[in-house]
């Protein structure tokens, strides 16, 4: 199956630039997560590929089929693109049975009755829905509805399947399970999949590659691990994971070293972008799980007041304070001694932007 290529797609809605020249490529069998906060343009991008939104600029192709070429005035209607789309609300047709929901696309393609029967049965069996074929959508649970929506989207073998927040309507427990089987299913089908989500954990778990969008542009693109451990921008660093943010100013700068002054202490960190200048403002970001309790003074260790310790089940979360800066940290056990604790911000884990 051919690649999906999106080039320089831009969308304007009511004078507002929703998407500013976004490009990416998806190869068969690859799951790409479109991740970003609300308003970042991720759903718009998905809808552009589906043909439900009209970009004023850009090209979208699948192999040698051009779906969109704004420059040449080519724009295939949604129904001519032959893609599969799973809606956030599932959008099952309430007046049709499960079987008919799935069969509709095949009927549109004028399949023979036997062929339709065979394919729909196969698709339903694959998702464990065989016994529900004659039910109506409102008679199904949320998880079952989601499976029907997915069956409906892949039954006609589209080269690319688009998923708009496919898990967000499931309750938390079901969501974790669904994540695993959805990934397996897409893998098995050998489809390219584009999956919109605002949940970074979901994006990292589900996808082979993550496209992090912010304000209509791709902020960073890469494998989940790269995105998490090697963020290029402050936004990427703060969007992924749970973080402490330390506002300060650059005291000195050297190759691979940045000294960040926060109130009365100086921490050493890793400079993460070229715009930093000595004396200029900077932001330190450190993942909460990287903040450590220390037992003796040393470099990058700061005395902080323990405000409270919260029990989270598998660990404790500590709320710490020094002057006007607040820091969160995890600990296996609640600290036994004193309200004042020594906190270490490991140099390699403290990113300075």
């Amino acid at each position, binding site marked *: 199956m051919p690649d999906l290529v999106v080039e320089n797609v831009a969308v304007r809605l009511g004078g507002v630039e929703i998407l500013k020249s976004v490009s990416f490529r998806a190869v068969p069998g690859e799951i790409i997560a479109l991740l970003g906060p609300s308003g970042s343009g991720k759903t718009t991008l998905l809808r552009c590929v589906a043909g439900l939104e009209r970009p004023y600029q850009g090209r979208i192709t699948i192999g040698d089929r051009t779906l969109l070429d704004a420059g040449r005035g080519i724009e295939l209607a949604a129904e001519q693109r032959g893609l599969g*789309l799973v*809606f*956030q609300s599932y959008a099952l*047709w309430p*007046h049709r049975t499960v079987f008919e929901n799935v069969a509709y*696309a*095949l009927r549109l393609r004028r399949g023979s009755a036997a062929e339709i029967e065979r394919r729909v049965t196969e698709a339903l069996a694959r998702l464990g829905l065989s016994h529900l074929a004659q039910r109506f959508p409102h008679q199904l649970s949320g998880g079952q509805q989601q499976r029907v929506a997915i069956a409906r989207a892949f039954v006609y073998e589209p080269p690319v399947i688009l998923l708009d927040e496919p898990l967000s309507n499931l309750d938390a427990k079901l969501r974790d399970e669904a994540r695993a089987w959805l990934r397996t299913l897409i893998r098995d089908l050998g489809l390219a999949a584009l999956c919109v989500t605002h949940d970074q954990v979901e994006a990292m778990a589900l996808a082979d590659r993550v496209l992090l969008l912010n304000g209509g542009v791709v902020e960073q693109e890469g494998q989940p691990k790269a995105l998490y451990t090697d963020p290029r921008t402050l936004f990427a660093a703060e969007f992924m994971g749970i973080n402490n943010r330390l506002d300060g100013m650059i005291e000195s700068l050297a190759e691979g070293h940045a000294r960040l002054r926060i109130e009365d202490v100086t921490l050493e960190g890793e400079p993460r972008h070229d715009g930093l200048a000595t004396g200029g403002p900077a932001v330190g970001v450190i993942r909460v799980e990287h903040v450590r309790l220390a037992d003796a003074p040393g470099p990058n260790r700061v005395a902080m007041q323990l405000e409270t310790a919260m029990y989270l089940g598998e660990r404790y979360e500590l709320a710490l304070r020094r002057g006007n800066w607040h820091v969160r940290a995890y600990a296996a056990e609640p600290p036994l001694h004193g309200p004042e604790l020594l906190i270490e911000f490991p140099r390699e884990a403290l990113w300075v932007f």
Partner: protein
Amino acid sequence: MAAADWTTAPSAGLGVAFLRVPAIGIAMVLVLCPILLVVYQSFLSDPFFTPSAQFTLDAYRFVLEDPDFWRALWTTLALAAGMTVIAVCIGTVLAFIMVRTDVPGRSFLEILLLVPIFTSAVVLAFGYVVAAGPVGIVSTWVKDVIGVVPWDIYSLPSLIVIAGLTHVPHVYLYTAAGLRGIGSDVEEAARIAGASPFRVALAVSLPMVRPSIAFASVLVFFLGFELFGLPLVLGDPAQRLVLTTYLYKLTNILGTPSYQLMAAVVVVIILIAAPLVALQRRLLRDAGRYVSMRGKGVRIEPLRLGASRWLALGVILLWALVTVVVPIGGILLRSFVVSWGEGVHLLDVLTLQHYRELLDYPNIVRGILNTLGVGVIGGAAAVACYTALALAVHRWQSKWVRVVDYLALAPRAMPGIVAGLAILWIFLFVKPLTPLRQTMFSVWLAYAVVWLAYGMRLVQGTLLQIGPELEEAARTTGASDLRVKRDVTLPLVRNGMLAAWLLIFLIFVREYSTGVYLLGPGTEVIGSLLVSLWGTGAVDLVSALSVVNVALIGLGLAVALRLGIRLHA
């Protein structure tokens, strides 16, 4: 079949353009032609079809120099303003009582409150005359008790009060809808702070629905301009004209039909009504925005009134007594008695004679059948047309959507009687249509055009209840625009269409003014027959026929309630 063939659906047969072009085209012709024809006629010296007709401003000169016109204009203004004040004051209070308090019997009262909307204004007017006129049954009773009748039903204040009372439901509906969008927490907060229920209504609830009230006020003021039945019946003996009745009287002012004068008056009416329609549109949008801000799922806890809820019930029942029971009861009673007056014992004069008499007039029998026909068949046809037009622009991103919006609104600026006149001219003017003038088609067309805005709102409201993703899902699986409408949109709105049909039935059966100029052998409907029979003074027939009209509407209402259809768009 090769696997690749499954990917894209075969290209669709008919494009959606095959729906859009004719639907929008026909709507445009039907809406614009009458308006343009009226404007054109107003600048001519003679009827537009006579060869001697020339361009002139004489018609305007005549109308604007006619003192009767100015009197009619001022009367209309006074009537519209007065009834607005009355309707808004009572309507908002009733809405508060109904929506926010624990007044007993709310579900029954809700129906009672809607009755005047679905009752023909001429029927109500006849009802007031036979019940509270100089020799009316209520007047007679009152005179027996206190010696005099303390009101004159034919005076301007009476007309204003009656018009105001019968338009309370309009204000009630919009205010109530607004109030339902507010959570009770704001009211509870005020009560805990020490406010009485009455203070809560005045200081918290009603100010929060100000946009709804503003819309309802403009709507009622506008309806005041359109008023025809009430001033025709109640203003006639005192020779008091409003713009619509002035127009009606112009028909015979000069012996020959003075088309250009009528057209000039119509243009004046449209010029006044159009900005009001535009204002309504804006206010409705504002009101909608205001309510939708509150999000979904607001909890409504009725305010406990304690003993004073019986007082609240009394207020509503008093309104219902004056607005529903007196006129409808009056006309009902009148239709079963030979006559009444001082000293007549009702039991002695009971009769079914008037109903038997109805059957003696073939045109009345035809009128009843025609009314049913235009309601049932015409209603269905009208809903089909509205649906075609609504579907044509449904989920369409184009500037044409706005065009259709305004197109649907344009006939609102023409009171029914005016639209009827314009359509009559179209039938006279377009030769291929002339044979149809004597058929119910002409009446149906006029009704369908006059109620275009209402019908479109009904249908579009239903269409908008379908989540867009249901249609998008069909698009992405490979269905063309037209296929989506057929396979997804229409099946999902079937119930909504049924409701629209029933509401249009009620409206078409109630309608009277639009058919006035189209009335002729073959085109009789109850509404226009009532107007013309009243002119001949046949009170017996009018009463019986009015009851038939009310009964038909009652039947429709019963079906609607049985099916659980919401009675307002």
